[in-house]
């Protein structure tokens, strides 16, 4: 009676966890063996084998599947890189803006003195700015006026 029981029996609530695990593993192994048989079975006809299965024993179908999987994997890796790069680029300016806001707040915190609008102070500020521009613009070296290179080797002897 026990021998006639089907191999794929559904686990009853009374069965232990280990027996259920063993059964499911057994099923998986059987399924994998089944797939292997389908993929790697050599046909008796030699000419047919050459056209469908290569010398290494891998069928064209398998090759296609593996290539497709590799392509998908490759695309995924590129996508991960692109996403991480874009994320970094988007985040950076946000940080800069935050720093700028901080700087502005520190300036705002200082209160202007009564000399902020003083005519003499404003004139000095303007003069300093003009001078700074002139300093940055000007080069003290007169590159265009270096002495000319002239030929003084005038003779008619060989």
């Amino acid at each position: 009676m026990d021998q006639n029981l089907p191999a794929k029996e559904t686990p009853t609530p009374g069965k232990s966890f280990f027996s259920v695990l063993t059964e499911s593993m057994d099923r998986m192994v059987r399924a994998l063996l089944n797939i292997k048989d389908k993929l790697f079975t050599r046909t008796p006809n030699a000419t047919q084998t050459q056209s469908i299965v290569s010398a290494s024993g891998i069928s064209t179908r398998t090759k296609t599947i593996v290539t497709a999987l590799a392509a998908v994997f490759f695309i995924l890796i590129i996508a991960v890189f692109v996403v991480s790069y874009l994320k970094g680029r988007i985040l950076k300016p946000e940080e800069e803006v935050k720093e700028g806001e901080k700087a502005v707040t520190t300036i705002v915190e200082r209160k202007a003195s009564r000399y902020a609008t003083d005519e003499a102070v404003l004139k000095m500020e303007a003069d300093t700015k003009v001078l700074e521009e002139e300093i940055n613009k000007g080069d003290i070296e007169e590159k265009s006026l270096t002495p000319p290179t002239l030929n003084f080797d005038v003779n008619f002897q060989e």
Partner: protein
Amino acid sequence: MKRANTRVKCNGMRFLPLSIVFFLFFLVSPAYAQTPGSEEFNFQRAYADYIFNFDIYRKANLDYELYRSQYLQFKTLKSQENAYNATLAMLKARDSTVETYLTAVRKKLDETPGADGAKKEVLFAKIDQEVTWHIDHSDSLPSAGTLDDLVGDSKKAEGRFKADIPLFYETLVGTSGGKVIYVRERQEAILASLKQKIAEIKVNGDKDTQLLERWILDTEEKITRSREKEAEAYEIITKLGSGTSISSSYNQALFKLKEAYQYLKEANSFLAEIITEIKFED
């Protein structure tokens, strides 16, 4: 009554020539006043002249090299004549190049604000002397003579040019130094006003001026260091030797002036900071 009228007429006639002279003077003077303005001889013009003459010289020198080699190869009368003419043209162009170069350098120094007046005058006197020499030398070159005559004339010009090299560099350092002096003088003017303002603030008691006074001292120190570097540059240039060391001495002097300029740059940013500090409360 008639007599009186004729007397008035006579008096009026007496002023007629004078009024004509005045009329002509006012008519002519605006036109005359425009002439120097439109043809003003400034550095730009002098520099353009120099470049133009230098180009002519370069071409003349190429011709000289060509006809010289032809003469040395063939030794014919024709090749000798060609070599003579080419050499004469080259010597004249060379003199003009030196003359216009000296004029350009002189104009640059003249137009540089800040250049020391006394030093300028000394350099101008030397430059004018050299310009005159090169003009005279060019005029004295014989239109007909031997190749040996031209060789002798060339040697004279060579000696003069070599003796002029320190003058060239001295003038260039004077120009660069003038730029440094100009910036420093303007900074010192701002600094003087700033010190006055800080003294005023101190009297008013509006603000603690201790920090400002300390910063003023720091700025003054930068200006003093700039002066020191400038003095070192002039010391190098006054000790100019001869030969290849001249250009290296010039480069050293120029480096010192650049350092002096850098100190002034820093002093200027200090001034800007002090002014900003004054504008805000403690």
